[in-house]
């Protein structure tokens, strides 16, 4: 014989069982003195709890709630402005950060290893930068190398 659990007894006493469950529990209780005693114990606790009556609070809480709402409404414009400002700032920062991050990722970066460097002979490298056009190093030759070419060379004073 399976006895009724404490949960079943509490639910039975509270009227929280379905009619089918209640019928099964009643059938068991008819045949089981132990469960009847357990049910009485549960009911006695329920009866004690029923004695704990409290006078309902006569206090109306609405005036306090209304005051709190009004107080929060009073400071709302400042908070609303701060809130809006911080949201806009957050969006801008996010945009700038994303742009910076995307740009950084788009630029190829050297890992610093020699294997990443293009290989070329010294002559090829000089040809690439135009050094092969220099016939012989001279002061003016060097000057022309370091002086940027401009369409308006009148602005540049040629050194003697």
């Amino acid at each position, binding site marked *: 014989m399976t006895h009724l659990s404490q949960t079943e007894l509490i639910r039975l006493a509270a009227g929280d069982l379905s009619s089918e469950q209640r019928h099964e529990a009643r059938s068991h209780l008819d045949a089981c003195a132990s469960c009847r005693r357990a049910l009485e114990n549960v009911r006695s606790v329920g009866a004690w709890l029923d004695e704990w009556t409290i006078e*309902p609070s006569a206090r109306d809480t609405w005036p306090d*709630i209304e005051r709190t709402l009004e107080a929060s409404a009073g400071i709302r414009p400042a908070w609303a402005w701060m809130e809006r400002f911080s949201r806009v700032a957050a969006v801008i920062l996010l945009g700038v950060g994303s742009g910076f991050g995307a740009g950084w990722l788009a630029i190829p970066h050297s890992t610093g290893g020699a294997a990443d460097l293009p290989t070329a002979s010294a002559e090829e490298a000089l040809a690439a930068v135009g050094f092969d056009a220099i016939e012989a190093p001279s002061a003016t030759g060097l000057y022309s190398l370091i002086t940027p070419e401009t369409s308006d060379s009148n602005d540049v004073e040629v050194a003697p």
Partner: protein
Amino acid sequence: MFDANQAKEETQTSDHALLRRIASGDREALAALVRRHQERVLTLAFRFLGRWDAAEDVCQDVFLRIFQKAGAYRPDAQFTTWLYRIVANRCWDHRRKSSREPLAQADPGAAVSRSDGASRVDREERQEAIRRAVAALPDRQRLALVMHRFEGLSHAAIAEATGWSVGAVESCIVRAYASLRERLAELQYEK
């Protein structure tokens, strides 16, 4: 004949209607909702927290929360389920904040035997003994017991309101009953 279920449904519909208005900032609707449900909230919070001032704080928090969150309420659930969830959360927060404060003297026997040597206790003293015994329960057991016994919530409804499993709720209630039986045993012979 006016059906009780119909009345319940109309109140429920009315709660939903009030919440729709509250969601658009209607304070009159909030006032109506407060006056309809504040007693339920106050008594539950008082039975759990043991003090009227704390219960009133919780009550205010609950309705301010409803004012803030009314727009998020979905009418597919009963309003009272949502209300109990908010009350349970606020009560829980309150206990967490004041966890070092004792809820009450955890000595129900003192109130019983103090009265006179013949162990005769009057009604107020019995009530005080019961209140102290309930206050001495661990928080989870007390919350589950109050919701079950005084609010008449099913174990499933308590689970929904607290976020605990039904098994955990049942375990809390069984333990609370066992503890109360032990603490209040002497009252049995004093009626």
